[in-house]
């Protein structure tokens, strides 16, 4: 009786253990074996735009037009809220349930390409006119393409700058670091603002790397050595990076920025609770509506290594597991026609990726002489891609934590050293992400 029980128990636990092991063996391997996302000539498309009705409607419009333009293929749209979009995709990938077509945040493209979530694209001349920052490449292959880009910029009232005797900079003649610091000191001295500069430090997630790594790069540092993407040593913890970190922390200690900014940066600028807002091209429309011609758009500051902004926004790709790659490619090519892709850019209030005259006619504000031309200029002149390496998601979260700690008062050098150490360790664990 007793030994019978024991045997049963052992058998059961071995069975469970084997199940566990085999699960472990499969759980995060590439899912390219099976096919998903397509049922015959009907394919599924995922987008992160559930919370953005205008852009979702523009995407939907392309799909409707595509479905109507031919009778062979059909595309179905599924929209997700942005905040948890990556988690939804990763969970689906683990289960082998990716769609055929999906949009991806630009810097994530190499990671998903490396993991074989994405298949390389052959779009030929359809992408000839795209801004370089909107084409997601890895290992010299194109994996994704975006309909638009966005540009970081600062916003202020012309009148406020004039009162404080501060020069309004231009794309050809941006502020230098010294000029910027002097301007901030002058604004602080007036005593009108608790914190004159709003750097958007209450933002979460990817915003931190997107917004502050360009400043790091302008100081002469970077997130990783871009020669072979194998180590961050020297780039993220060299003297330039330490200068950047010390400067950021200094903004907090001098009371120029809040360690955590207000909940609504646009409202704070409009209500004159801050003097300068660091944000992106997407803030231009609401701000110019409220401030009119008093609104000054301030291009990125040159801290020494040239003015920098982050390049690459949401891009479209095709999955490796897609069961009907012909349909997916046909759809992507169709969507890259100016009236469609630029339609999305217009709906989203972003810079059209397609810089052809036909496209710019659809949104003249980004054409030469237009009110938003400055953003298109910055995008083509200052944009630096976030490091196109599969290590990026790890680098980004590590950088975010380090930057947050530095703003909260951690020692810049040792914090950056620690970040470098964990990034390098992670690259090693993943066999160099090759």
């Amino acid at each position, binding site marked *: 009786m007793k030994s019978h029980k024991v045997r049963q128990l052992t058998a059961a636990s071995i069975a*469970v*253990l084997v*199940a*566990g*092991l085999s*699960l*472990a*063996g499969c*759980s*995060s*391997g*590439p899912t390219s074996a099976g096919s998903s996302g397509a049922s015959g000539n009907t394919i599924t498309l995922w987008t992160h735009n559930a919370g953005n009705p205008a852009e979702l409607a523009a995407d939907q419009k392309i799909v409707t037009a595509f479905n109507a333009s031919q009778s062979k293929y059909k595309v179905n749209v599924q929209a997700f809220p942005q905040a948890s979009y990556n*988690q939804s995709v*990763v969970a689906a*990938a*683990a289960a082998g349930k990716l769609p055929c077509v999906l949009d991806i945040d630009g810097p994530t493209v190499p*990671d*998903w390409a*490396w*993991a*074989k*979530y994405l298949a390389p694209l052959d779009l030929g001349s359809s992408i000839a006119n795209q801004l370089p920052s909107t084409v997601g490449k890895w290992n010299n292959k194109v994996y994704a393409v975006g309909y638009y880009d966005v540009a970081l910029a600062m916003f202020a009232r012309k009148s406020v700058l004039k009162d404080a005797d501060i020069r309004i900079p231009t794309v050809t003649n941006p502020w230098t670091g010294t000029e910027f610091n002097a301007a901030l000191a002058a604004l602080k001295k007036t005593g009108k603002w608790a914190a004159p500069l709003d750097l958007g430090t209450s933002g*979460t997630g990817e915003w931190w790397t997107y917004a502050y790594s360009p400043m790091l790069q302008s100081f002469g540092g970077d997130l990783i050595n871009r020669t072979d993407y194998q180590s961050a040593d020297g780039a993220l913890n060299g003297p330039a990076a330490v200068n950047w970190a010390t400067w950021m922390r200094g903004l907090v200690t001098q009371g120029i920025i*809040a*360690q*955590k900014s*207000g*909940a609504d940066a646009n409202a704070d600028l409009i209500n004159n609770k801050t003097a300068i807002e660091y944000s992106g091209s997407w803030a231009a429309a609401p701000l110019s509506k409220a401030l009119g011609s008093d609104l000054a758009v301030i291009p990125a500051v040159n801290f020494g290594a040239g003015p920098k902004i982050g390049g690459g926004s949401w891009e479209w790709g095709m999955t490796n597991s897609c069961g009907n790659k012909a349909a997916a490619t046909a759809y992507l090519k169709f969507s890259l026609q100016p009236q469609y892709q630029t339609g999305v850019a217009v709906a989203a209030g972003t810079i059209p990726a397609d810089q052809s005259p036909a496209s710019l006619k659809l949104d003249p504000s980004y054409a030469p002489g237009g009110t938003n031309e400055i953003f298109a200029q910055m995008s083509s002149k200052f944009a630096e891609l976030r490091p196109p390496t599969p290590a990026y*998601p*790890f680098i980004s*979260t*590590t950088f975010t*934590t380090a930057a*947050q*700690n530095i*703003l*909260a*008062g*951690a020692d810049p050098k040792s914090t950056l050293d620690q970040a470098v150490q964990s990034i390098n*360790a*992670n690259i090693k*664990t*993943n*066999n160099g992400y090759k």
Partner: protein
Amino acid sequence: MLLSQTTRAATGAPLPPRRRRRIILSGSRGESLTGLGMAAPALILLALFILVPAILAFVLAFTNAQLISPNPIQFTGLTNFIQLFHDPVFYRSLLNTLYFAAVVVPVQAGAALVMAVLVNTKTRGTSFFRTIYFLPVVTSMVVVSMLWLFMYQQHGLINQVIHQLSFGLVTGPDWLNNPATSMPAIILMSVWQGVGFHMIIWLSGLQTIAPDLYEAASLDGVTSWQRFRYVTWPGLRNTRALVLVTITIQALSLFTQVSVMTQGGPLYSTTTMVYEAVQTGYQQQQTSYASAISLVFFALVLIVAAVQRFLTREKA
């Protein structure tokens, strides 16, 4: 845990003498099978949806599995644990977890008990107050966290209230951005959200204390403190165990509040073990490392539960 105590209480009847047992053996075997059959749905579901993934997490902790990777998974032995025990953030998260639990368990249990005593009367409006105190419990933790995130802002509601109540003398801190106040702020909010539930559990204990004990005590003319100390408190012995275990498990698993309000910051002051496991597992894609953290976490909870059981048992 308190479990075997209660089981013992449940099966408190002395074991039947051997002889009788042998006679009804066949019947009891049938009973055993029927019983297992009735318990089977719950057991199977728990095995499927907790045991299997837990074993998987256990196995993954000894591999190099990544959330997103084309590379095959390899067993790496104790590598993750060695890395873990050299990671200062891990020690910080361990410390924060224990800190949170060490404050929340007595504070929430104590506040709940005070509230339970307050509303354990038959006066008018009592059920009104019970309802009010229970409101935050039925409100989602995500919603509550967002609400308090809003109220904890530098110029938010809480600091405005402090400012007004002190006639402008005291300016509240930037609660969630100061390493010294971030954890206390989360503690306060967590207690606010959860205390109503434990008030109700205490209340149940209070209502089971035999009335004649109170009558005897009042005949002896004891003070209300003495009455509490010698009648109420001993009468709550079993309730104490339940309150202790539920708050402890809930406190050690602190995650949602941190995830919504501080993301572990500032300066790791609110990074907890579960948060660190989720952060490394999802955001940083280090599945195996996160599993190692989870394993250490399970061990911690088991140790704490064992210690608690030992302590409550000694006093009993």
